[in-house]
């Protein structure tokens, strides 16, 4: 088991490294170098940059040197928490991102919880009552969940609530809390706004998980041990919940690794539609205005947090599910 943990850790580190190279490539991709752009930006806003300062900046970022030297210099600064300066905001990137990163992760995590919370009971119901009206209904909803891209769903929900409720359902906070400091009242306000984006985000993944859960449970229900349990006179609910459901839970463990990146990805795009204060809208804006340090940092941090989140959930599930543990030994 220790070997497995080490292997997972190494893979996570490798993934983070690949993401960091890609993020740096994104910073580098636009034509021209960013120091020239930065100086132009500063001159435009009235501040003057001396030739000596320009040379110092060039030296700092290793411009003119090969890609790997620039990458190494960038990484060395990133590791100590210096992500550079956002050109558009003229402030350190970390300040601009602020709480947004955590809100992104919070929404993705909430969506993960919703996915599990919905997929488990619905999957069980659909398998136990196979071909019932409810099963067909959930299958239908599941197909809609698969087919409607979540940004489209967000758009439709926005439109319907605007049209019929006259309310804008976007955002994560009520206006009075938007710029307020964190307090219990603000957290409660967030909790009230969280379910809608979480459900919208979760629908696609839920549909997939319900289908897997249903298929797995159907296989388990036909096993002889279920008949034995019934023959021994166990109550139906107990028969189902205690044995086949637990055996069919495997996808919950194995799909989380792919579900979480998918949710983080989706949160970026639905945040733009629902104007949620996550990194999504910031990323799009920074990319369009070519504020590359901000964009690169967001891609990097999102990637790293996704990998870490997946790693933690993998380890937790391994700890919870004895079958995974025994398979490894």
């Amino acid at each position, binding site marked *: 088991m220790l070997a497995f943990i080490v292997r997972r850790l190494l893979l996570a580190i490798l993934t983070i490294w690949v993401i960091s190279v890609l993020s740096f490539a*994104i910073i580098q991709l636009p034509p021209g170098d960013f120091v020239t752009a930065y100086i132009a930006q500063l001159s435009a806003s009235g501040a003057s940059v001396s030739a000596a300062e320009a040379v110092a900046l060039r030296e700092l970022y290793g411009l003119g040197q090969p890609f790997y030297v620039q990458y190494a210099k960038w990484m060395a600064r990133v590791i100590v928490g210096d992500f550079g300066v956002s050109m558009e905001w003229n402030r350190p990137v970390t300040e601009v991102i602020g709480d947004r990163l955590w809100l992104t992760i919070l929404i993705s995590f909430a969506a993960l919880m919703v996915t599990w919370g919905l997929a488990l009971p619905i999957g069980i119901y659909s398998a136990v009552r196979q071909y019932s009206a409810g099963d067909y209904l959930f299958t239908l909803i599941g197909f809609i969940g*698969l087919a*409607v891209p979540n940004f*489209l769903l967000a758009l439709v929900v926005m439109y319907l609530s605007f*049209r019929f409720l006259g309310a804008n359902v976007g955002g994560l906070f009520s206006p009075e809390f938007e710029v307020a400091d964190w307090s219990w009242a603000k957290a409660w306000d967030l909790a009230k706004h969280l379910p809608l984006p979480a459900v919208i985000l979760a629908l696609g993944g839920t549909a997939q998980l319900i289908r897997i859960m249903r298929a797995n449970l159907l296989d388990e229900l036909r096993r002889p041990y279920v008949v034995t349990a019934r023959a021994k006179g166990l109550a139906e609910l107990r028969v189902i919940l205690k044995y086949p459901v637990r055996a069919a839970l495997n996808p919950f463990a194995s799909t989380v690794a792919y579900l979480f990146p998918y949710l983080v990805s989706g949160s970026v795009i639905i945040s733009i539609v629902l104007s949620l204060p996550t990194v999504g809208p910031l*990323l799009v804006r920074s990319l369009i205005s070519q504020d590359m340090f901000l964009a690169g940092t967001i*891609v990097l941090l999102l990637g790293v947090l*996704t990998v870490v989140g997946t790693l933690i959930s993998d380890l937790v599930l391994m700890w919870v599910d004895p079958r995974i543990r025994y398979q490894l030994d």
Partner: protein
Amino acid sequence: MRARLFTRLPVTEAAADAEERFAVASQLQLTWWRFRRHRLACFSGVVVVLFYLLAGFADFFATMDPHDTEARRTYAPPQAIRFLDDDNSFRPHVTVLRARRDPRTFRMVHDQASKVDLGLFVEGYPYELFGLFQSNIHLLGLKNAQPGETLHLLGTDRLGRDLWSRLVVATQVSLTIGLVSVGISLFLGVLLGGVSAIYGGVVDTVVQRLIEIIRSMPTIPLWMGLAAALPNTWSVTRIYFAITVIIALLAWTDLARVVRGKFLSLREEDFIAAAELAGAGQMRVIFRHMLPSFLSHIIAATSLALPAMIISETSLSFLGLGLRPPAISWGILLQDAQNIEALALAPWLLAAAVPVITIILAFNFLGDGLRDAADPYG
């Protein structure tokens, strides 16, 4: 499995014939027979074919020039086709509202309704079919239209462009971009999946880790970053191909897994061992013996991968980071619907959602049907 199927049949002459046919049928034929029994999948297949026909003859089905802007008919609502005249005689027509500016408020008002007849195969804006034939014939249009009388089956957008025509032309881009991306991912997937399975060892480990790494990254932010770096000066076609490559680069992993799995399971089969013992070379074994038996699996995996590609392009263009105007795709059309106020004013802007959802569902059902059919003995 096969033996059971035979014993179930009563021994009559017809059954013997069927048995004979079954025994000598090729893999593709067996797949086709099984596929035909899936009604939903067949229906979806028809839908997909119709969509591609629509895309192929997009200009023929369009009613107005999709790029033609007109300030006087911004956000014009959809026109309903009426088949009966006031005296209940058959006369397909639409009621055209001519816009004029109110002399006091300077706002546009739509009034002066007049009936204009609809016709089939009427002349309209000129276009090239498949880049080869010049034509100006359109399936549907107004007969003897006066200047200012226009046909808008789905209304118009912010710049007064006809939404139906734009939607039809967008089909062309959105459906082919998926095909090209899937083509590239298929190439990468088959190559890397195949290499990984055949050579095994270090190569296999490297490819498998690469797949795991790509799958554990959030793709949309990466796509966005890469797509945003495409220079503004590039032509529409170049951007189009760059986007397909960007999408394909992160999307080949599923196909690679399918291919590798199939290769590994087939390698254990007796007929492969027989071919090898008979002295067939590696290439011959792969292309003559292995490929035909998992071709249908690849086709199924491809049709399941297509909707994801279409969603990716739509999402990127929707964010303004994919294709850029004057290109027209579903994502670009939906971009106009991003503004909630505009959407409340002109709900028909959401029309592009209908083909997106329809084609994704159709590809999913088709893929499911194909996947089931791909195992004729299963």
